[in-house]
């Protein structure tokens, strides 16, 4: 009955699906997914981590997920549905679930919530995110080395700090190799529309970009770059299948270590509300193998990765120069403060574009 109720709820949420196995006395862990588990990107990586949980804890836990849950008020019903189904630890895996998660968390103080990429917390609601800009910095180094035209193409989703800090980290790195490097930025204003992402990649290549970077979720841009004989970086997942001679590397969201740690804490009764913002050093994400580049470029990338992990290299090391040529106030000692990166709403020097809304 519970299963059919859940299935009904999922059906109401536009074609969701549900997986649940019934048993008593197990810790029930629930997941809310933004896309379909087969999106090959964002949601797929969360699903891989859920599968890793099942493998790690076996029959000590029982997991349930709801996929294709729209962000916004609709999500509240989906989260509450998971609570009513007896889930004690619930991962809500997209920024737009922030307020709905908080609302449900306040209503059910005995249930623990984990919200990805947000900033609102509660006694029973943690947040977790990754310092993807570290990966973008490494990509910037590679891109500047590999570009022959000196023009990089960047497909953005929405002009939010996470994406803007990625563009800035890329350009700071790229300028350290080639001070005259240019970047062309196209905002798709969507996270997922393969056709539009492909059109954006075509436009960038037609305008002279020869290395394509993306902050949208489908492998469409990789595929177009491969068709046109250019180079590209993947996003979220391994995308080398769509460009065996095209992918330089990809930022891989590896949520499994974090999810395993949090479920373990819940099982041990030591779970408490935390704010986790991890980088390459804490394995919140990883870089896909460095491919389709000469050994010297590979070495630069590997060295940068090692330096970032060792804490010797920070992409936003002061002084950071803004678009207007003025130095950005350095609030974090030697580097920009975390808060400045999490709220980044400016372009660095050398980007000839205007940040939407500025």
């Amino acid at each position, binding site marked *: 009955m519970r299963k059919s109720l859940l299935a009904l709820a999922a059906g109401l949420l536009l074609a969701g699906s549900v997986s649940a196995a019934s048993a008593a006395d197990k810790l029930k862990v629930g997941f809310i997914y933004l896309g379909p588990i087969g999106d*090959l990107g964002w949601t797929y990586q969360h699903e891989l981590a859920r599968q890793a949980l099942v493998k790690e804890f076996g029959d000590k836990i029982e997991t349930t997920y709801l996929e294709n849950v729209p962000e916004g008020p609709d999500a509240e019903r989906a989260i509450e549905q998971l609570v009513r189904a007896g889930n004690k630890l619930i991962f809500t895996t997209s920024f737009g679930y922030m307020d709905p998660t908080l609302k449900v968390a306040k209503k059910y103080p005995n249930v623990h919530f984990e919200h990805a990429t947000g900033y609102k917390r509660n006694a029973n609601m943690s947040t977790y995110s990754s310092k993807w800009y570290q990966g973008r910095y490494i990509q910037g180094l590679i891109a500047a080395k590999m570009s022959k035209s000196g023009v990089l193409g960047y497909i953005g989703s929405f002009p939010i700090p996470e994406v803007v800090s990625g563009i800035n980290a890329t350009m700071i790195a790229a300028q350290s190799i080639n001070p005259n490097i240019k970047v062309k*930025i196209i905002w798709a204003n969507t996270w997922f529309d*393969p056709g539009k992402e*492909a059109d954006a990649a*075509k436009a960038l290549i037609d*305008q002279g970009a020869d290395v394509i970077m993306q902050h949208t979720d489908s492998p469409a841009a990789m595929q177009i770059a491969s068709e046109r004989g250019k180079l590209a970086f993947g996003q979220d997942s391994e995308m080398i299948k769509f460009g065996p001679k095209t992918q330089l590397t990809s930022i891989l969201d590896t949520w499994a270590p974090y999810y395993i740690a949090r479920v373990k804490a819940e099982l041990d009764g030591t779970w408490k509300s935390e704010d986790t913002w991890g980088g390459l050093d804490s394995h919140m994400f990883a870089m896909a193998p460095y491919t389709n580049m000469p050994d010297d470029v590979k070495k630069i990338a590997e060295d940068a990765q090692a330096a970032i992990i060792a804490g010797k290299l920070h992409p936003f090391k002061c002084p950071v120069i803004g678009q207007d040529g003025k130095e950005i106030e350095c609030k974090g000692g030697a580097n920009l403060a975390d808060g400045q990166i999490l709220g980044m709403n400016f372009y660095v020097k050398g980007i000839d574009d205007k940040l939407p809304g500025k």
Partner: protein
Amino acid sequence: MELVEAIILSVLAASTPLLIAATGELVTERSGVLNLGVEGMMIVGAACGFGGAWLTGSIFIGALSGIIAGTLMSLIFALMALGLAVNQVATGLALTILGIGLSGLIGAGFVGERLTPAAQLHIPGLTDVPLIGRVLFGQDAFVYFSIALIIGVWWFLYRTRAGLILRACGDNHVSAHALGYPVLRIRTLAVMFGGACAGLAGAYLPLAYTPFFIPGMTAGRGWIALALVVFASWRPGRLVIGAYLFGAVTILQLHAQGWGVGIPSQFMSALPYLATVVVLVLLSRARTGGSTAPAALGTAFVPDR
């Protein structure tokens, strides 16, 4: 000049699925049936189209699978909305929801696979002519077919007796019935044609546009096709203008962003919708006023025996 050619090529690729799906829906609506399930039929067409092509290695069989899948989906709609006279709006919406779920199920085994996209025409000499060569003589079969399709539909609707009867069903099903025409049979055929077109339009995405399948890859194109039919005031000629205009503004706004025009990208993304609506509304105002919608659109017909 190369850039202009590249832009036109991208525009054709972006407009073709909209044109094919909207052509089918135009015929459906002209018969008096409002099928809001275009998005659902398209995405199932995309999943089956990719599956067919991936399993057999033939783009043609892929396209055919898409057409058959779209037609089968539309038959579900016909059974409910025509056979049982269920509310057409609700049935169409349900068809979209069903289609999105079903396509994920069908496509689950194909996610992550890639195809060689549909071949493009190449006529030595002609295709190599600068600027217009590739535009006119270097497209894939879908593009040529979509143009033949809309011309065929125009000819059928306005130049054949069968087309006149179909329009009569859409304008006044009681009179058409009184004259002895099988209204429900005609409407069923029109709905099936709409489904076949939506299925083909869906199949175009993984077979030619972005040669892989991902759940949800139609990303709202079915809804745009629906809107185009309304704003084209149910006329094939305006539909062509609307579809290409929408595609053109979509591509141009991406290029404008790349050039750094400095207009907020959020506005640029809304521009294709704005431009298409404005132009098509102006076009329909320029001619005779009054509503051009099929008079019986969306109303159920239950024949008295």
